[in-house]
């Protein structure tokens, strides 16, 4: 194994990942804190109330950022799953394993925040005939299925492969979620066209705040997933000399 593929396998080395993320984490956490603070302060204090929704538009900054980011979990798990199936790289499966519960948190918050907003703006907490709502709920169930599949299958390698397959298939639902509002337009509004005009309903005050929040939420996803993956590395690689040294040095 030389030349072209070396970087790929080095990338898959738990030790390489652990050492790199030790150096990246402070920067990622710093950036996350900065974007989160700016996003939340902007959304809560500076965002002008919407001409129809009033102050509930502050909910949408969080809802849109978390909902959009929640759609990246199945593609992420599918890519990691493919790497697991084809190259048997352990690190990919460690990432996939911890992506599933985090994705469930994202999806739950999407549903909850949307519901709390809808309860006053739509006059209903839930609508079974709305394709966006139902396909998002389905994503939550799919993620819970991936999580229980992992615990249900005793052989770790078989479990990893089964989860990888389900993650790849689960990507179909992401496409359905994305286009549900265009294909079957019932209650949930389609994505709003962005306007450059200050003071218009979809003006920069709203979408730049949302953009800041999206970056914040993606950074948070990265930080949380990296922390969980590092834990998994310490546990699974506990026979390696470098992990022994790391454990010995910890207080």
């Amino acid at each position, binding site marked *: 194994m030389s030349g072209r593929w070396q970087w790929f396998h080095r990338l898959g080395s738990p030790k390489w990942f652990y050492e790199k993320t030790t150096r990246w984490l402070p920067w990622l956490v710093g950036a996350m804190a900065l974007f989160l603070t700016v996003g939340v302060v902007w959304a809560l204090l500076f965002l002008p109330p919407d001409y129809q929704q009033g102050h509930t538009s502050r909910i949408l900054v*969080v809802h849109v950022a978390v909902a959009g980011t929640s759609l990246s979990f199945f593609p992420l798990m599918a890519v990691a799953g493919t790497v697991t199936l084809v190259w048997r790289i352990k690190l990919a499966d460690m990432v996939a394993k911890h992506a599933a519960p985090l994705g469930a948190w994202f999806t739950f918050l999407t549903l909850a925040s949307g519901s709390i907003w809808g309860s006053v703006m739509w006059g209903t907490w839930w609508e079974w005939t709305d394709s966006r709502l139902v396909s998002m709920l389905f994503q939550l169930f799919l993620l819970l299925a991936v999580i229980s599949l992992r615990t249900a299958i005793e052989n770790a390698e078989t479990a990893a492969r089964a989860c990888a397959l389900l993650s790849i298939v689960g990507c179909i639902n992401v496409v359905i979620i994305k286009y549900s509002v265009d294909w079957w337009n019932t209650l949930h509004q389609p994505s709003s066209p962005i306007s450059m005009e200050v003071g218009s309903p979809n003006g920069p005050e709203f979408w730049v705040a949302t953009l800041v929040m999206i970056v914040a939420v993606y950074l948070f996803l990265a930080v949380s997933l990296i922390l969980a993956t590092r834990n998994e590395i310490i546990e699974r690689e506990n026979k390696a000399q470098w992990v022994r040294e790391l454990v010995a040095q910890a207080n």
Partner: protein
Amino acid sequence: MIDGIQFNSLGEFLAMGGYAFNVWSVYALFAIFLIANLALPLRKRRLILREQKRRLAALDGREESVRDLADSAGWEVSMTGDEK
């Protein structure tokens, strides 16, 4: 008041134009979501390190007694972890 802030008083800010429950419950859930998914892995890290440390100590103890035994018998032993 800082220019651009949409509220004239703290009371008005808390009231959120009548949508206090909706706005604040979503932001509370958001805060729980953020804190939980950072605090839980950090807590788990402490637990894992403590457990692994205990495991290593137990292992060291075992290796030492094997070494003593081997020494007294005059054998050469090498164990995992010795090579690097």
